[in-house]
């Protein structure tokens, strides 16, 4: 009885079995790459907002402190989005007739809130608390990037769990003195690891990597 398969079938089988390993590895690598890409994480993608509010203008231009608007950042899990009243504190005087700010005035008149698009959106099973990070010497710009150079807000980091854990495992690489937490100009010194280790000791910073630290 003659052979059903040609002799080359052996080679084809070997190559395809061997090749399949690379194809699968490649696919896994690709899905991993996609998963980390801005297409999924939305990192560095500026969001459209109902009012094209510029952090660059208000922070770098006018020198506003983060806490003027984000009032609860030191006390609460949520940093706080300013009520319309906060906008009107200044804008009832400055640019009070600008058509650009009409939605703000409209909100103030009608008592209807401005609906901002959320930029930093953690999954609902993650319980992040701003106040403890700020109190332990994690600067605003460490996670949020150079907000003073963002005309429209975007999310600087991936906000993926590996990114959280990087700091939770090695806080000394990122912490800064409490006095500099709200500084947008702060640049980590050359001896960051040395300073970081000291701050970790001084501020009693723990390496919290238990699941329930963030997931409840």
């Amino acid at each position: 009885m003659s052979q059903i398969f040609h002799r080359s079938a052996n080679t084809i089988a070997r190559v395809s079995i061997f090749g399949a390993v690379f194809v699968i590895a490649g696919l896994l690598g690709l899905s991993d790459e996609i998963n980390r890409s801005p297409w999924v994480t939305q990192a560095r993608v500026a969001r459209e907002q109902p009012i094209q509010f510029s952090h660059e203008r208000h922070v770098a231009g006018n020198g506003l402190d983060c806490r003027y608007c984000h009032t609860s950042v030191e006390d609460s899990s949520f940093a706080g989005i300013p009520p319309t009243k906060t906008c009107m504190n200044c804008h009832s005087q400055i640019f009070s007739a600008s058509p650009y700010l009409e939605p703000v005035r409209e909100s103030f008149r009608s008592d209807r809130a401005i609906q901002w698009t959320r930029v930093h959106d953690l999954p609902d099973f993650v319980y992040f608390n701003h106040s403890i990070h700020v109190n332990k010497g994690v600067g605003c710009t460490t996670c949020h990037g150079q907000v003073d150079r963002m005309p429209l807000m975007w999310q600087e980091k991936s906000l993926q769990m590996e990114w959280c854990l990087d700091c939770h495992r090695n806080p000394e690489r990122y912490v800064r003195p409490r006095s500099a937490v709200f500084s947008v100009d702060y640049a980590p010194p050359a001896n960051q690891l040395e300073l970081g280790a000291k701050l970790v000791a001084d501020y009693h910073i723990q390496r919290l990597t238990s699941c329930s630290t963030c997931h409840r």
Partner: protein
Amino acid sequence: MKPVWRTLDELAGDPAFLDRLHNEFPSEVEAITDPVARRTFLKLMGASMALAGVTACTRQPAEKIVPFVRQPEDLVPGKPMFYSTAMTLGGVATGLLVESHEGRPTKIEGNTLHPGSLGASDVFAQAAVLGLYDPDRSQTLTNVGEIRPWSAFLGTIRAALTAQQPLQGAGLRILTESVSSPTLAAQIRDLLVRFPAARWHQWDPAGRANTRAGARLAFGEYVEVQYRFDRADVILSLDADFLASGPGALRYARDFSARRRPENADRMNRLYALESMPAATGAKADHRLPIRPSEVAAVARAIAAAAGVRAAAGAAAASPAHQKWIAAVAKDLLAHRGSSLVVAGDDLPAPVHALAHAINEALGNVGRTVVYTAPVEAEPVDQIQSLRDLTAEMAAGKVDTLLIVGGNPVYTAPADIALAAALGQVPLRVHLSLYDDETSALCHWQIPEAHFLEAWSDARGYDGTVSIVQPLIAPLYNGRSAHELLAALSDRPERSGYDILREFWSRGGVQAASDPARLKAATNAAVRPAAPAAGASRSTAVSSPAAAPPITPAFESTWRRWLHDGVMPGTALAAKSVSVRAAALEPGPAPSGGGLEIVFRNDPAVLDGRFANNGWLQELPKPITRLTWDNAVIVSPATAARLRLGTDPAASGGEHGQVVSAVVELRYRGRTVRGTVFPVPGHPDECATVHLGYGRSRAGQLGTGAGFNAGAIRTSDAMGFGSGLELVATGDSYSLACTQYHHLMEGRGMIRAVTRDEFVRDPKLVHEGFEAPPRTLTMYPDVKYEGYKWGMAIDVNSCIGCNACVVGCQAENNIPVIGKDQVLRGREMHWIRVDSYYRGPADNPETYFQPVPCMQCENAPCEVVCPVGATAHSDEGLNDMVYNRCVGTRYCSNNCPYKVRRFNFLLYQDWNTPSFKLQRNPDVSVRSRGVMEKCTYCVQRINAVKIDTEKQDRRATDGEIKTACQQVCPADAIVFGDLNDPDSRVAKLQAEVRNYALLAELNTRPRTTYLAAVRNVNPELES
């Protein structure tokens, strides 16, 4: 030690039942052994596996952030606020502290400053927040089914009042529940001043008609009885469930359990209980005597005679079976003159209450363990008579306008009072209520009532302390409070509840609050400074600016203090001296025999039916019976056997939660109703207990149709119990969802109990026969827990099995309601359950309660079997559950020896009803289908306190973190804290000799441990 058992079948050792125990998931056993079903199962599994990954491929939708336009000053988004308020039940308030997240009340706690709470709360308070968001609440004001505006109602009622003016209100009737609100009472009295011929009737099925009548019989006037369990050494309960129901129960449970610590053996109290339907108090009793309620009077009389009550001497002797018991109890009571206490149950007739008062007086307990004060209720009346009178007048056509303010009298009225028929004779009927219920259906106007979390009011606690009821949220459905409805009948119909309340208290209410007599006098004068002749000055009063209350700065600060504290200082009622009239102790007619005896009780979960549509309460395994979603005809095992009625838990194919039981027809005084028989150990023989509050026809999605209406055979002359019941088998059977059969632990030593004398002699006796393996017996390296090391100690000796922890946990941790069908499959989701155990003979066993949350094992069997690392140990020893990682293999649950893990077999959470979204705790993930969940020691609370203390650079102090179950516990049975702190309460408790771990022999090293029960038995009665 005697063996401990959980169900009658276990005690009997039925082989079919024992066989069933070995199936973890009995409902699926057939599917696994049947080859065809198995193949289908594998096919489905394969398809599910293939698709499982795809479900994760969702991108988060874009979310909006909606800030305030003008942010309220004190509100910090992300931080909860707490407001004090009070919940009224049967006219008596319990002080509460309610957690609010951005304006949404989410969780209720007891108010530590309130004498009736001391920080604890009961199942009804815990579940009230779900009641607030119940989508079945009445949402619109209707007139015979048509939606109408409030102004239309105002027009109608004003016209009716105008018509009543010449008649002095002769056709005007108001029917309320028990009222302790000084403001509401003042409003009603004000109305009665203007309409002198109008009448105020009261009917409250949750009230205490017999207690009230008993005090009147004994003393010739209405007085309030308060007990001081902290001073009582020997307590006799005459079918009273003082630990778990009625006013002051939370306080009584706290005081009682504080005197039960065997470490202070000399201070340990002793409780004797005569009891019909087994309840918490009988379970905690050192000596319990099952007795039909009709026999209690004879026993009480015999004890009274022995205790030296002269008028009771020479009474008909109690049954010889009880003689030994009576002699021993009387001796013990006499040995503790001034520190003993006799408590009569709310369902016993007035003469028994009079006897209890007489015994307390003879023993010198008055002023020590029993305190009499003026009544807490504003206007105590004989409510049955009040309802009877109203019905008679209505039937006679004498009533033109009837206002039913709260309550559901058409459903709750006794069967022989034909309220529903008489209502038809009233031309204008108005019903203010939370639900469009049976009464609303027979009324012209249905006005949605504001929930107590939505309205301003005030009320008195069990000792008279006044609390302001403060709303947490604006009425969701434009509901009105009773104050606002009454205001509609007054000169100023559009006043808000807030204004009414402030006006009352700013005008002399403050000084008068502590003195009810002055209050009564003051209210008439205060609210209507110059009471004009009826009908004369409506227009002047409305337009007069002088009517506005003078709010002084001093009042403003006092008012704020009241709101903050939740109590008005100094408003507790003063003790009153009264003495028992000898005439009150005349022996009544001997109970007429014949047939079985029937006992009517409010249901421990839905009460008189008012909570019938509350899923948390419906699904709550009721104390002792552990039934959910149903009531039953509860009989003793012996009676069930005699009547050849009974349950067959194995008949259903072995499902854990299903008890198939015989349906019987209850024939009683010419009325019949069908119910399901359920034998309960410890129930007296020849007697059946039925719980009210079921069989509702218009309760809402959950309450309608559940159970049977026992009220349909209750008559007004025998509200608590009566004889002449006939149980007739129908041949039908019915499935009851009973969680007592879930999670059986195969007879291992779960409960350890000794007597006080044994404990004093040899405290180590509790560990006899149990062995814990040495710490070295493990393959895993020993973990050192730096920082915090969380642990919990649960005192089995204190636990009264009230279930408050179960509902508290459900509210705190967003635990879903699954429905009867799923409970029948053994899938209930409660993270903490209260197991009950029995020891001794089935006719009168000792009963023990054991709350079981996750043990947070150090060597956790669940962790090692999880294939995806969804359950892992934290640095502080918590057994973390990561919902977002869980793929639902259920291996962890299989491997958990304590059976504390719960699986979302279906999408149990209601993700669609908008109002339920408001209720959820934002600090806890809402779990979806296919996810395992379990107790986390309220890790959200731990983390919240840890974040706060870290910011202050300090450690959390002992007691700063309270788990939800600990916080609600009235008996102080659950203590949580840091085991690394040797001074913490939990560390001290775990160091006590009584401390034992559940299933310690498995070397799981649970962080939750138990303290053994110690009973203070009377050696004379120990057989």
